[in-house]
């Protein structure tokens, strides 16, 4: 691999920092004008870079790209470097994609606060990129907090009652989660003397032989609780629907599309796959039970919601449950399914949030029971909504089918038919609440109030089409993607 290639990976951390710098120096007026444009360009750059990186990894048949230090006073082999493997790059791609969607549709939604919005979004992206790239649990925590802090502020960026409420709830729960995570890191540190991924993987196979095994168990409890809060698993999920519902549209696209997945699910996958690869059935069982509860709870609760975004929040709980269920199987198939579902979820949930933003913008409402018959006026939004929800339900040609299939097969192999069938049955509930959305908003008789509504503006349309194409394309090209993943041996 060319040496300069690793340096080019600074794009992930450098581009957003550069944007912040440039926007701050450019002066308020110019910055307000160009901020959103620059924002989605960052998204595009990130998508392109990650795709190129994946292709190069494949080309050179390497497991990961590693970074040297940012600066070097004295080379130290304990250096906290960054590293990007295929899973990181998929996550980075998702971040870029959702960033693009959020910025591209933000223009009409965010208005005068473009400058501050862009700056905080850049911080958030930095946080998530860092999450994807770090190789050290403590650094993971640092970037977790960066992402968190910027999301609290972004949720309450309008300083209205709703946003502040959602932001504060998220902040409190998240702060507790961070504290829990840190406790568990400290306890792990007592046992290993390091928090780097490869060092802590030592505890996976033989935690009983460590110096303080009881503390490791306590650490596991705190770890599970902390990350369950961050990813919103039932019963740690209280903040999630509130935060999703209260956030301004572009921020909820970001939150629902990627943030929760990065701070919670990505971290869980990383830790479980590094820490507990073939070990603890206890941790896996815990995650499995929590995941099942989330799947059922999220789906059932979503069926009774009125607010579009809140409904999507519950749906996220359910879908995150599927991802964690895949992870909890602890076998390769489950990981592939989880990672692919991670990607799919980013795609279709972003589509749905974009749609919710589009509908909200056009009608001024987010209560789905008051709408109806919008499919005629907003055909692209309606169609992309159908594609997205079919993918979420897991209908064959679409991408969501494959990931769910893999997860359920993996669950079947490791945990037996009963749990797999519970997951399958919950899938029907998924169909129920999505059909409810579709029926209430897009089908049925046209509400007279909305007789003169038009299709959403160009930004929305383009994003919806692009994301739908990704959903369908990934479904059709799934075997190729699978080959790629296998070639990397990441999963």
């Amino acid at each position, binding site marked *: 691999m060319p040496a300069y290639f690793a340096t080019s990976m600074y794009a992930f951390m450098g581009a957003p920092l550069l944007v912040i710098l440039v926007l701050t120096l450019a002066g308020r007026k110019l910055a307000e004008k160009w901020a959103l444009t620059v924002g989605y360009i960052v998204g595009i750059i990130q998508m392109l870079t990650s795709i190129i990186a994946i292709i190069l990894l494949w080309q050179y048949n390497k497991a990961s790209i590693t970074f040297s230090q940012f600066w070097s006073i004295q080379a130290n082999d304990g250096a906290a470097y960054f590293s990007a493997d295929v899973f990181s790059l998929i996550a980075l791609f998702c971040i870029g994609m959702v960033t693009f969607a959020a910025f591209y549709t933000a223009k009409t939604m965010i208005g005068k606060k473009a400058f501050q919005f862009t700056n905080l979004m850049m911080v958030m992206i930095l946080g998530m990129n860092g999450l994807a790239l770090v190789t050290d649990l403590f650094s993971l925590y640092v970037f977790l907090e960066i992402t968190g802090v910027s999301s609290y502020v972004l949720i309450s960026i309008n300083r209205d009652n709703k946003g502040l409420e959602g932001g*504060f*709830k998220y902040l*409190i*729960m998240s702060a*507790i989660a961070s504290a829990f995570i840190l406790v568990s890191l400290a306890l792990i540190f007592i046992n290993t003397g390091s928090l780097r991924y490869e060092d802590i993987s030592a505890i996976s196979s033989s935690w009983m032989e460590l110096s303080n095994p009881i503390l490791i*168990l306590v650490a*596991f*409890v705190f770890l*599970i*609780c902390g990350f*369950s*809060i961050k990813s919103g*698993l*039932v*019963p*740690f999920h*209280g*903040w999630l*629907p*509130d935060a999703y519902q209260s956030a301004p549209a572009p921020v909820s696209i970001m939150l629902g599309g990627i943030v929760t997945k990065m701070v919670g699910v990505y971290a869980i996958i990383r830790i479980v796959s590094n820490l507990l690869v073939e070990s603890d*059935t*206890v941790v896996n*069982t*815990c995650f499995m*039970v*929590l995941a099942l509860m989330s799947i059922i*709870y999220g789906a*059932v*609760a979503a*069926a*009774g919601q009125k607010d579009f975004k809140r409904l999507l929040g519950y749906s996220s709980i359910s879908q995150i449950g599927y991802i964690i269920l895949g992870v909890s199987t602890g076998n390769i198939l489950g990981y592939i399914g989880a990672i692919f579902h991670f990607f799919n979820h980013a795609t279709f949930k972003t589509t749905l949030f974009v749609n919710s933003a589009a509908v909200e913008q056009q009608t001024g409402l987010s209560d789905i029971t008051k709408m109806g018959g919008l499919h005629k006026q907003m055909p692209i939004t309606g169609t992309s909504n159908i594609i997205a929800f079919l993918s979420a339900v897991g209908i064959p040609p679409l991408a969501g089918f494959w990931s769910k299939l893999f997860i359920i097969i993996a669950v079947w192999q490791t945990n037996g038919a009963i749990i797999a069938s519970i997951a399958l049955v919950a899938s029907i509930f998924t169909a*129920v609440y999505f059909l409810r959305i579709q029926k209430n908003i897009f089908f049925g008789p046209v509400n007279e109030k909305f007789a003169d509504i038009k299709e959403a503006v160009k930004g929305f349309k383009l994003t919806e089409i692009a994301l739908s194409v990704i959903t369908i394309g990934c479904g059709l090209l799934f075997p190729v993607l699978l080959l790629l993943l296998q070639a990397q041996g990441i999963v």
Partner: protein
Amino acid sequence: MFNALNSLITSGSGVNLLIIMIIVPALLALITIIIPKRSYFGRAILFLIATVVNLLFAISLFVGEEMTMLIPWADFGINLSLRVYDFSQFMVLAAACFAFLVALYSISFMRNKSYSGKFFFYYLITLALVNGALLANNLVVMLFFWEGLLVTLFGMTIIGNAKRPAVAMKALILNGVADLLLMFGIAITAMQAGTMAMDMIVDIPMEGLGIVGFVCMMLGAIGKAGSMPFHSWIPDAAEQAPLPFMAILPAALEKMLGIYLLVRVCLTFYDFTPGSTLSIVVMAIGAITLVLAVAMALIQKDMKKLLSYHAISQVGYMILGIGTALPVGIVGGIFHMINHVIYKCCLFLTAGSVEKQAGTTDLNKISGLGRFMPITAICFIIAALSISGVPPFNGFFSKELIFDAALESGVIFYIAAILGAFLTAASFLKLGHAAFFGPVKLPEDVREKDMMEAPGAMLLPMIVLAAFCIFFGVGNAIPLSIIQPLLGDALGGANFAGWPHSTVLVLISIGVLLLAVLNHYLGYRRTGEGIKAVDHIHYLPGLHQVYNCAEKHYFDPYNILMLLFKFISYLCFAIDRCINWIYDVLFVKTIQGATTAMKNFNSGSTSRYIAWMFTGMAFVLMMFILLL
């Protein structure tokens, strides 16, 4: 000439005559349907040409050698395989003859009928399918043609009265059930034999699944032939379907196909021995069919319906004969099948002439037609004598063979057969007397001076068939010389040609006939009307009620089946309601309840959220403590 034709077709180009037998009628059928409606003449000519061509090919097959063709097709031993040998040569020829004669008849009959085009089309398709079914040498291929006949049967039943599809449905369902059984039987047979090639399946032992396979195939075959309990659509169809259809399908081609398959099943496929339980079962079916159907025929007041019941009853004789599994019975059965097709065709055609001229076949409305239609009447009389088994007509000789076999198998069967013969004779005496003799009576809308003999094209087939009745009776050695070799070694060198060897049986038969005449005479004397000559049997105490019930279709297996289906469908409906309730009410209510509970769960209170978080933590801790 036919040899030349045969060799011309089979040699050189590689096109096989066997496949031509199937393709040519089907192709001509397609051409028939695209000919414009106005040019009835062109259509009719083409239709006739098609049957003539078919007849020519059949003759050239008949004079040709035994041959086989095989085109590998699907896997699992399913090949497009056709074979012609002595039996199928004969059957194909017979089918072609009848098809030609009935076609000639129907050209005249169908004139001015709106559905003539469809009729010709279905007729030719039927012919192609019958040829295919007779020539098939692979069970699946045979099943294909066999099932195809179901479609044309439905089509032909429905074209006359598209607005009342009940009869067509009935025909379809009853035949469908029979075909389903056949399909099942074929599956088992193929499994037992390990092959689907029909010429390779020989003497499957009658044990275990073999019995099931035999019974299924046998039921499928006799179902096609129209035996009980698959019979009840025939009388209904007789009332409504076009008459040539009755003459060609239920009376002729279906009988031939059904008996052909029954013979093959009993003679070659399965190890079917005289005196075995299954033999008695088959004979019982035959005996019951023949007695019950003829008893029903006795009281009919409509010519077509009466004939159709006879069509069922005569099948009983054939099944009885074949069911004995004795050489004499099987030869008798096959011979009777040929004879039956001849005289029953002839009878139906005379009924058609009557319908054409008088506008109805209801015996209450017509009488003394012999004065206007002498040739028809003569043909009718010959065929009636033949079916009643009067020497020296053909029916007599085949019936005697069956009587012989029945007596050998069991006296009870013989008595049933004799009873059948008595009732047959009685009902035909009644029919002939009522329709063609006695005082002239015509429907109100037909004037006496308009009544005249049927046109020549209709008379010719009748005359030919009547002639065959006599010819096959007097010269019974000719058909028997073709039939007897079919049995091969089983025959044991016996020859049933000529006068029946058992004089006692002949005397009994003649006695029974005389009894029938006496019965008719007494009945006629009592009531003074030919049509009421058998009323004393009809209104016999006890029997009368049974007849009433039968007339109301209480014994119709179709109705019983439908009743059963109604019950099942009601049951399904109830279950469906129940499931519906579960989905519509229980499910929705449960989900609503659950959703409400979960909404309360997320009350918006931060402390509540944190409390739930603690619950979760406690839960995880519990899991750790429990699982470690």
